[in-house]
């Protein structure tokens, strides 16, 4: 690759000392001029161990992993908030960390004052903020309230303003943490569009998120972190798949090991998407048929279950909700329920499948699973074409007639 590396990590490790710091003040005072004694090995927790990766210019790198895998530590290291115990981090260009939305916002100050404050914290010069001010306010859609103290804002307005400032930071490298998940669905879409626009403009981005859909939509490459190590690295699709597999495996081991634990009688272990010949299929044309099969594992029987399947468009819009009556009930062990749609007739976009097992008579949810994705390939909805329903265009026809 000819592009220069904007960020390079070489054998980076970070340890934390476990336990509360109950040194006495006397010790503290002596430490003012004497170095701290080295803590013993057993009190040390390695949050990250031997991390190596480089991020070339213009790449959007996603970092995923369970809570406690080391994602936040990695972000803190990259943004110089904390320092590696071992190893080196090389950085190029101006870096902005969009980690804490609305950092430094004060409730008593007006929206305008907070924009300047937050911008300054993110490293913007006053005139840079001035130049972008109108764009920021317009993006946040709070023109009328910009001179109102932010404590009178709704929480939606607050996060919109905070995100708007963050989104207008011009930097060579952006560190982004979960900030896409703020606001309502339309604002989320707007946020994502903004991020995609930055990607188009060649920004280098490191993106940490639990929202696998936005990782898939936004990143060129993904790192999977587990217990402080990079366990996989590659294109978003396969890595996200691997991460899901792991999550599911954990869930299965837990349910099998401890059945009847807090009412968790059944778990959904997998949601398969298959074509007519029952081959796994993640892409489906509007006129193709499609089989969604939900596998479950039950630790206890359920007499009157209903299997539900919902299909949502990427922005959360509910496109389809159907129930499958499972007449024979669920018995202990494995099983599945499925839905055959022929043809699917959805407009080109990315969709997620949600599967739920509920009770027919009681308001009770036994299991829930979401996140499995499929794509309807083709041109995304634009100004001229939209909606979610995609009729069989060959069968019907569109014509203009003057009467």
């Amino acid at each position: 690759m000819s592009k220069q590396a904007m960020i390079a990590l070489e054998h980076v490790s970070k340890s934390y000392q476990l336990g509360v710091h109950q040194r006495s003040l006397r010790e503290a005072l002596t430490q003012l001029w004497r170095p701290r004694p080295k803590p013993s090995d057993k009190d040390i927790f390695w949050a990250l161990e031997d991390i190596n990766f480089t991020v070339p210019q213009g790449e959007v790198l996603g970092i995923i992993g369970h809570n406690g895998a080391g994602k936040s530590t990695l972000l803190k290291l990259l943004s110089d908030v904390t320092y590696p115990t071992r190893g080196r981090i090389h950085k190029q260009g101006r870096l902005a960390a969009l980690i804490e939305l609305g950092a430094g916002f004060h409730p008593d100050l007006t929206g305008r004052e907070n924009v300047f404050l937050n911008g300054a914290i993110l490293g913007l010069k006053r005139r840079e903020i001035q130049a972008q001010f109108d764009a920021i306010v317009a993006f946040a859609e709070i023109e009328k309230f910009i001179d109102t103290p932010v404590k009178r804002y709704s929480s939606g307005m607050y996060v919109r303003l905070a995100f708007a400032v963050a989104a207008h930071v011009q930097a060579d490298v952006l560190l982004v943490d979960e900030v896409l998940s703020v606001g309502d669905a339309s604002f989320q879409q707007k946020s994502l569009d903004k991020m995609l626009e930055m990607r188009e403009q060649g920004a280098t981005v490191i993106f940490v998120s639990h929202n696998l859909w936005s990782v898939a939509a936004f990143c060129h490459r993904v790192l999977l972190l587990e217990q402080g190590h990079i366990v996989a690295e590659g294109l978003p699709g396969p890595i996200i798949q691997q991460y899901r597999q792991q999550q599911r495996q954990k869930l299965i081991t837990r349910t099998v090991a401890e059945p009847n634990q807090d009412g968790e009688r059944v778990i959904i272990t997998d949601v398969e998407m298959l074509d007519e010949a029952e081959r796994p299929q993640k892409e489906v044309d509007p006129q193709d048929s499609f089989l969604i099969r939900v596998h479950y594992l039950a630790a206890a029987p359920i007499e009157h279950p209903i299997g539900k399947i919902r299909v949502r468009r990427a922005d959360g819009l509910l496109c389809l909700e159907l129930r499958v009556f499972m007449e024979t009930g669920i018995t202990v062990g494995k099983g599945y329920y499925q839905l055959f749609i022929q043809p699917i007739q959805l407009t080109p976009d990315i969709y997620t499948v949600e599967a739920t097992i509920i009770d027919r008579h009681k308001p009770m949810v036994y299991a829930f699973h979401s996140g499995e994705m499929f794509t309807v390939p083709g041109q995304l909805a634009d100004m001229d074409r939209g909606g979610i329903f995609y009729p069989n265009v060959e069968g019907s026809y569109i014509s203009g007639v003057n009467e």
Partner: protein
Amino acid sequence: MIDHLRKLLAARELLYTWVGREFKVRYSQSILGIAWAIIQPFSLMVIFSLVFSLVLRVPTGEIAYPVFAYIGLLAWTLFSNSLNFAIPSLVNNLNLVSKINFPREILPLAAVLVSVIDFAIAGVIFLPMLWWYQVPLSPLILLLPLLLLLQLGFTFGLALVGAAVNVFYRDVRFIIPLALQIWFYLSPIIYPAEMIPAAWRPLYFLNPMAVFIDSYRRVIFFHTWPEWPYLGLSLLVTLLLTGWAYRYFKQAEREFADLI
């Protein structure tokens, strides 16, 4: 060190913005607003004047007790406000400190600078007081900015150490009010330094605040130069303290995010 200072210089806009924020926030939603900056030292001055010039009769020579005390209270309020706001400044903004990288000394420094604004506001009524009590001035008052700068340097040094140590040990928060109370009586605020027996003065003037306040009075009221040996010592203490404090702060800063 030079590198740290350069980064601080690069982040000066953040410093100004933060000072503005702290100042607005301090008086927002209070009816009297910035008048509080005057009311605080002024009401203390009135109380002390009643007690120490009418009841206890502290000798202040030809200078009326209210002006005499007010300059001491101004200087002291600047000092104690600075520390009271600077020391908890890192802990109060923990989500900033633990998530965003910026020169952290901006927080205690801003607390000191906001106190300087308060000081300037409270200082405004000092001029009519000088006129009212007919205090003649001499060109020596040109020394005041230098003395003030020295006091601020000393304050900043203490603020840096206090704020950093407070991250590691919250005990500092409890020690400060007590320490300031004692320090108040160890400084010539409500009484003239001349009341200290001559034999004790070398020890007494080891306290830089005592030297600063005594020097303010000398140049404003008595038209004499400050006592150079003591002032020189205070200058030395200030330089050493602030230099060491800054280095200690920048070294401790690397651990703030892990410990706060």
